[in-house]
C-alpha cells in the first residue's frame, strides 16, 4: 500500500482495510505515546490510557467526520484520559522515577534494534546527555518538548490538542525551552 496522507489511511481503515489501520497505528502511536508521557503518568496508567485512546478510535472509525484531523483527535483523546487518570488517583511519576534509560531489550521495535545497532557509542552518549538535560527542564518545557519529540514531528494543531495549549504559544515556548536546553548542554 502506498498511501501518504493520514486522512487517506484513516478512510481506508474506516472501510475495513486492516493494513491501513496498522499503518495508522504505526504512524500515530508515537504522537499518542508522547502525549501520554508528557503527562508523566506511572507506567501502568500510561499503558492503559494509550490503549483506551486507540480502542476509542477503532470504535469511532465510521463516525469521525474529519479524517485529516485524526492526529489531533487522538492527541486530544489521550490528553483527556490522562487528566482523568491524574484526577482519579494522582499517581504521577516524580521526575527521577521516569529513568527509562534502559528499555527492556525484548520490548524494542525492529526499528529500535536497527537504531541501537547503528548508534555508535559516541552518538548514544551524546543523546543520553541531551535526554538527561531534558529531564532537568521545567515541567512546562518537558511537557511541550516531549510532544514535539514525536516521530514523525507532529503539527502544531496536534501539539495544541495534546496539551490543551493555544497554537500561537507553541512557537515562542518551544524557542524558550530549546534555549534552556541548549544552556544546560553548554
Amino acid at each position: 500500500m502506498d498511501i501518504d496522507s493520514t486522512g487517506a489511511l484513516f478512510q481506508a481503515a474506516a472501510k475495513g482495510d486492516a493494513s491501513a489501520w496498522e499503518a495508522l497505528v504505526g504512524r500515530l502511536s508515537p504522537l499518542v505515546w508522547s502525549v501520554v508521557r508528557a503527562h508523566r503518568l506511572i507506567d501502568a496508567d500510561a499503558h492503559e490510557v494509550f490503549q483506551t485512546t486507540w480502542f476509542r478510535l477503532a470504535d469511532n472509525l465510521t463516525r469521525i467526520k474529519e479524517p485529516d484531523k485524526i492526529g489531533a483527535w487522538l492527541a486530544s483523546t489521550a490528553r483527556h484520559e490522562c487528566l482523568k487518570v491524574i484526577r482519579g488517583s494522582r499517581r504521577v511519576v516524580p521526575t527521577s522515577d521516569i529513568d527509562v534509560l534502559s528499555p527492556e531489550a525484548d520490548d524494542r521495535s525492529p526499528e529500535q534494534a536497527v537504531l541501537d545497532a547503528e548508534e555508535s557509542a559516541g552518538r548514544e552518549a551524546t543523546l543520553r546527555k541531551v535526554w538527561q538535560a531534558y529531564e532537568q527542564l521545567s515541567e512546562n518545557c518537558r511537557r511541550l518538548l516531549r510532544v514535539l519529540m514525536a516521530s514523525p514531528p507532529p503539527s502544531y494543531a496536534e501539539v495544541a490538542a495534546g496539551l490543551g495549549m493555544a497554537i500561537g504559544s507553541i512557537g515562542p515556548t518551544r524557542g524558550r525551552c530549546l534555549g534552556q536546553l541548549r544552556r544546560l548542554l553548554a
Partner: protein
Amino acid sequence: MSGDVEPGGPEREDTDLEESLRRAAQLFDPVPVSLMEVAVEAFRFRTVDAELAELTFDSLAGAAAVRGPAQARVLGFGGPGAGLDLEITAAGASLRVVGQVTPPAHVVVEVRGDAPVSVGTDAFGRFTVDRVPPGPLSFRCRVGDAVFTTEWVTV
C-alpha cells in the same frame, strides 16, 4: 528542511536540537512494542454494528472532580433510546462494577476489556461484576432490538 533557512541560524539550531531530542526519545522512551500490537488488534474488536453510547457523565470530568482512593467513580452513558449508569469502586487490586441499564429490563451485559465477561441483569436492569481488572473498559448490551456499546474509559 526548507532552503530559505539560513544554515547555522538560531532556527536551524533549534531544529537540530529538536531532532536530537526526537532521536533520544526513540532510543530511551520508545512506544512499547506490546502496546502497538494491542492497538493493531483493536481493529478486529471494533464495533461496526452497534450504536455508540457516549459518555454523558463522569465524576472525574470537570474542574470540580475530586476523588480519594475509596470513593466511587460514577459514569453515565447514553445512546438513542437506552443508557447505562455505572458505579466503579476499588476492591483490593481489582474493581467492582455496579450498573443499571435504562430503560430497566432483563438484558445481558457484555464487559469488554482485559477480562471479557457477560452478566445478566435483574428485572430492574441492575447488575454487578466483581474482579474487573483496571484498564480500558467498555460495555455492550442489547436492549430490545437495539445493541449499544459504550465509549471506552480508563478505570
